[in-house]
Each structure stands twice: as C-alpha cells, then as structure tokens.
C-alpha cells in the first residue's frame, strides 16, 4: 500500500503527498459500467462472481455510466453498437479509463476479414488504456489487465497531466 508504512504510533495521521493519495484512492475503487457485449461478458461475469471475486480490487458493477470510472469493452463492437458505446464512454465523468477485453474489441478478432458489420477494434472510436488479449481472455487475464491499469493510475501525476 505504501501509505500505512508511514503511520505514526497511536495517532490517526498518515503523511503522504496529495498525488499519491489521489492516485491511491482512485485506483482502489474503480467502479465499472455494468455492461456486457458478447462472449467476453460471460467471462467478465465469472470474474465478478464467487470464484475470482472482482470486488476485492474495488471493482463493482454500476448500472449507470455516470457513476462509473472504467468501462470494460467485453466483446465484439458492431457498427450498430459502436455509436452507443461511444455515447456510453462520453457519459462517464473524468477521469475515466477503458479496458478493451478480448480480441474482438482489440482488433476485430476472428471477424476481422469477413465481418461486414464488425468494428475492427474499439480504439477506432474511443481511446483504450489496457488491451487484454484472448478469445475470450481467462478471468486471470482480466485481473491482470486491471492490475496493469492500477499500475498506470499509480504512476499518474497531476503536474504532468496539466502541462
């Protein structure tokens, strides 16, 4: 955790800098949009359910994008759905992060050649922070993707972002 090491004896005070505090609080409660697209959504559900327990990383599905921090694009984005995915992303308040889960969301997956109605990669419409490969990725892979995202948030800097 890094913060609790510096706790004073018998006092309820923690010394840290603001940046670390903000990053730490942000990365430990990443609420995701409760939103599944395709096969990967089942693996996402399995990740949230009993065996893998997404909750221990602070990831809780929220039904509304306006109360969420991350969106996991779990599956094939079709052309008909693409405008809706973009709208969902735009509704999430900043700071927001995107995990692209599975080959379909990364690059079109098995539908890249003949998929006349498949968007070849969700990064054509919204910016992606973490790509999780696999078709579908195992729950462990999604967990690792989330850890990578947490690492990214931990190293964020307010000053550098502003410049």
């Amino acid at each position, binding site marked *: 955790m890094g913060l609790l090491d510096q706790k004073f004896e018998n006092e309820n005070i923690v010394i840290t800098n603001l940046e670390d505090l903000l990053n730490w609080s942000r990365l430990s409660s990443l609420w995701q949009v409760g939103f599944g697209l395709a096969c990967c959504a089942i693996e996402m559900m399995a990740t949230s359910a009993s065996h893998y327990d997404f909750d221990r990383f602070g990831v809780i599905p929220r039904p509304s994008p306006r109360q969420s921090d991350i969106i996991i694009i779990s599956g094939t984005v079709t*052309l008909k759905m*693409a405008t809706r995915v973009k709208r969902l992303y735009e509704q999430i308040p900043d700071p927001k992060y995107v995990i692209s889960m599975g080959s379909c969301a990364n*690059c079109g997956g098995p539908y*890249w*050649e003949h998929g*006349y*109605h498949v968007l*070849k990669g969700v990064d*054509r419409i919204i910016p992606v922070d973490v790509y999780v490969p696999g078709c579908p990725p195992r729950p462990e892979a999604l967990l690792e993707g989330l850890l990578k995202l947490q690492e990214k948030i931990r190293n964020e800097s307010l000053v550098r972002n502003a410049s």
Partner: protein
Amino acid sequence: MTFEEIKNYIAEHYPSLSDLDFDKSASDKALEVTADKLIDLMSVLYADSALKMDNLILISAVDDFNGEKIIIEDGSTVMKGGTLSVYYHLESLSLRHKFNVVVRVPRESPDVPSVTFIWGGANFNEREGYDMIGINFVNHPNLTRILMPYDWEAGYPLRKDYKNPEFYQGMKVPY
C-alpha cells in the same frame, strides 16, 4: 407420413396443387412451388387434418448465384438474372412428420407472399430474409431491417455479389 406420402396426398386431394415438382438436386427433399401458389399450399399444409403442420421451424432465404456474372471495372462481380430461393421447413408436432417447401423467385423481382398470418413465428424469420438476401415478403406487417442498422444503404449482405462500403457513419469498415 414420409415426404413422398405427403406429396402424393396433396396431389390426390388438391388437384390445383398437383403439378408441383421435386427439387431434384437435394439430399433433403423439398417440394418446389411458384410464388403465386405458395399461400394455397401453406394453407393446405397447415389446415388439413391429415397434415397439420402446426410448427414452422425455419424460413431460410438463399442466393442461388446461378445467373450471368458480369465483372465490372473495379474487378468485382455483379450478378444479372438467376434466382433467389426461400426454403420453408415445416413440422407437425402432433402427427410427428416433417415437410420442406422451396420457392424460387427471379433476382430482379423477389416477391414472395408472407406467411405471418398462418404462423406467428414467421415474422422475425421473414424480416431476416429481407434484411440478408432482400426477399420482398408481400403483406408482411413490418418488413424492415432487423439485424443490420436501419439506415444501412449498401444492399443485402448475404447476396454473393454484395460489396461492403468503405465507411459507415464516419467509421472505417474494412480492417
């Protein structure tokens, strides 16, 4: 009843439908019918007490790709003439027999009467046939695109000479 028994039964009891022929190229057999006689045949199959085809399993539209192939200047093929087919798979849940019917219509005017007023389940099936192959189901209550976006203008994707557009609503479609 087997396929032959049903066919003979129809020919015997309904003389107006007796001149129908088998679709000979098939491993599953299907009775070939013209579009104007389809409703008569379907009503008989549904209502006759010895046939009672109460379950419409599937309607599949097929591009036969048997017309004249013309290669246009950008190298792609365009089809002229030939036929599109619609296969109907029927089944009787009470009498335990199956029957198949096929309609062939010209590619330029693919009009097939709708059977939604007999089987409610035909509704979505026929909309899909319109969306994918472009069969015009006459008298369908709501013949609109179902799987593709409502504003899709590039044609019917499962026709063999379909060409995918480069862009849709500003998004690049090919890889």
